[in-house]
């Protein structure tokens, strides 16, 4: 299988010269095409920083990242924007939808920047909205929809342009269990039907149990990795919880 993300020796240090805080201390991550990978770990482990670096939103202090074979560290702003436009999709905890646009318009925003034709755009939006169960609300504005619908809108926006990789940062963080379930099912569908590669940061074992593989982080390093294989989600969930409690030294409360 083709490698989508290949991050090697990622270091990230925050702070000023006198007060350096290392956040990532040599992290290696590899994600293959079509994989649905989760990143878990206690607060402050560096999960979000790692995601932001892979998302090209933040730069690593040292290390190399190749996405779909392209080295993205040290890329200039202009090509980086174009790279993001065609290769990456994003989903955040707080949706980041534009209040001024309808759900439909929000979804097609990436295509607007890519100057896609009107007809293909409409077809695509309708298709994806149908799959994600938001077709009936396409003409509404974000404030008229629920959190779960907003997040599925964000998911639709993240995949509308067929990106190589979708990055999700705590996508279920603000959702109730029903909405979480819907969203994660949608992710699974995206992953299976469109062969979208998804990298998701979460602290929720339930969300992580939808992944094929979960990477655990602690104190800026990779701690361990769990693979679901052909076992079921229930089994995987139990495994995750067990690992988490060992990781947090018993202080990590998952339930």
């Amino acid at each position, binding site marked *: 299988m083709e490698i989508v993300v290949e991050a090697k020796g990622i270091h990230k240090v925050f702070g000023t010269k006198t007060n350096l805080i290392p956040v990532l201390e040599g992290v290696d991550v590899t994600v293959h095409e079509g994989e649905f990978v989760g990143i878990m770990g206690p607060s402050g482990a560096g999960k979000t920083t790692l995601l*932001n670096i892979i998302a090209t*939103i*933040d730069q690593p202090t040292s290390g190399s990242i190749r996405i779909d074979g392209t080295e993205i560290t040290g890329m200039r*702003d*202009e090509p980086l*924007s*174009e790279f*993001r*436009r*065609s290769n990456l999709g*994003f989903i*955040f905890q707080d949706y*980041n939808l*534009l*209040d*001024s*646009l309808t759900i439909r*318009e929000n979804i*097609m*925003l*990436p*295509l*607007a*920047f*890519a*100057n896609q034709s*009107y007809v293909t*755009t409409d077809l695509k939006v309708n298709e994806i909205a149908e799959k994600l169960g938001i077709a009936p609300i396409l003409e509404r504005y974000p404030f008229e929809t629920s959190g779960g619908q907003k997040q599925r809108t964000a998911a639709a*926006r993240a995949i509308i*342009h067929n990106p190589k990789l979708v990055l999700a940062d705590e996508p279920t963080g603000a959702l109730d269990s029903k909405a979480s379930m819907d969203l994660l099912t949608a992710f699974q569908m995206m992953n299976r039907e469109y062969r979208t590669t998804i990298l998701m940061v979460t602290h929720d074992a339930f969300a992580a149990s939808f992944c094929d593989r979960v990477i655990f982080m602690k104190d800026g390093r990779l701690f361990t990795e769990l693979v679901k294989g052909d076992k079921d989600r229930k089994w995987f969930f139990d495994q995750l919880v067990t690992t988490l409690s060992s990781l947090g030294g018993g202080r990590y409360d998952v339930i």
Partner: protein
Amino acid sequence: MTLYDVVLKNLKHNIGKYAIYIASLVFSVLIYFTFVSLQYNEQISEAFGRDDKMGPLLSVVSVLLAVFMIVFVWYSNAFFITNRKQEIGLYSLVGGTKKEIGRMLFYENVCLCLLALGIGIGLGQLFSTFFSMILLKVMGISLVVHFSINLGAVVQTAFVFGAIMLIASLHGYLLVYRFRLIELFQAKHRVQTQWKPSYLLAVLALGLIGAAYWSLLHAYNSESWSKHFGRNMTLALIVLVAGSYLLFHTSSSFFVELWQRRKKAYYRWKNLLTLTQLKSRLKSNGLLLTVVSVLNGMTLVAFGFAYTMYFNTMQTLDDHVPYSYQLDVQSVEMNDEITKVLYENKEHPVLFDETFDYLMVPGTAEGLDTVPGGYFYYEESFAVLPVSTYNLLAEQLGRNEMNPIDAGETVMLGRNFIGSQHEEENVGRTVELTGEEGEFSFRVVENRIESLFSYDVQPSVLIVDNGMYERLIKGNAVMTTRVVTVDNQLEAEALTEDLRTVIASGEPKEDYQRAPKVFYSFTDSYQTAQSIYGLLVFVFGFMGLVFLIATGSVIYFKTLTEAAEDRRRYEILRKIGLSRRKVKQVIARQTYLLFLLPLLVGIAHSCVILGSLSKVMDIQFIYPVSICIAVYTCLYWVYYKMTVATANKLVNP
């Protein structure tokens, strides 16, 4: 859907945010256009007529207003774009390059600016008519102001604003380049840095301000100030500004810290909530507060000064212009004609009418401490009168009569229009006067601060013994002048016009070449003074209003942005049990200091500067300046109330 649609939709949706931005653009266009159209207004420039020295003043002010406009537009543009960080971040995230986003915002801004230009000029048209009326009113000119559209003003405003808006739009374009995507996601968990208060800087701030105050207040009897007034004033102002900046930026946290140490006061909930935030507010807004306080101070000084001049001149004009009319008698026929006009009018009965002689005598003033300006103006001559004539006039003017003086003695008369005078000036010094018999030396025995003529440039007057006067007559020009005072002289404009017609019909005699102008009237002087000082008051008042609105809006915007950022904080406060009323109190308290501090510092600075000027120039500022400060404070209070209400609506729905 194209990017154009996105922008348009965004505009429609966020019309509120845009409205504030457009409003500030419109405001700056409005101000500038109103002023420029006053400048171009034909009725007004005709009304100035003789005083074309007012032209340059208006030009300087319009440049100042343009500078203000640059700052204001620049600031609101930056504010507007920074407030849209999230939107811009999102565009960037879904693949917009900075070039595309920058261009999008640039076009949008150009459209907004054009819109603002149109509205601003439209409103300015109405305002300028209104302001022309005020201007003419304070200048004492009665004219019906016509509504007229001034193409010159429109073109100049469009040009200046166009240039500024282009610069501001480019600035916005560049701002987009400076945004880093990560900031969008980090803004939420930004940690405020703590700093240690410094005794040293606190002392330094107070020291700088104190030193500037001390120097200003001792300016009136300082050698250095009387020689280098401009230089010292500039230095003092720089030190003041530096001190104020330190005070706000660095030392304020120190004083808040001192307050916090008093636990009894600190632990009261209101203080606890206010002080912690205030510490960071004052520091991060240090520059803003300094600018605001300096602008406040400047406005108060400028307006206070102009208003005082207006006020004082109108009050003391009869000291400088003692008679209703002063005419140099040219011929018997004309004199009769004048008498006829004077006594035939019924509204203004003649109170007194005197004709007297005086001499214009060339002399040497080297022996004097201070040589009066009038001496040089009248070709190094003094106006010489005998004691008897002086006493005659003094009786009519209600002044103290003079005892006979010795042949070698003289009394000097003179009153400066501006500037302090010492009673004992030149007393004991000598003056030489030249007659046909040769040089005569006189010792100044007394100095009286009064004027004996209505001339707009007063000659320096020497009163000499009657006998000496007779001897000086030989070889010197004898001037005959007639002074008249009528009842209710302030409203004697029609009479003045009649007299002027009579005077204009005659030709001035040749040997009057050294003598001053022929006809002086109180009404003319009054009108001239009113138009000059009225214009000053208007111009400074106008600028004061501009600065007031500008500083007020800057604090307003600032408070609202911060309130929006703190919305969650207030939500938490409410959730942990603070009532809405109390949350409002917290907001009011924080806002109140942001308004009060720069106002207080501004008032303090302006009072010291005006106090210093008042001593140097011997003018009383207290009454007019108190009015200015009161008005300014009231308007500021209105702004404060408005800000609290809006902020409260925002965070405490």
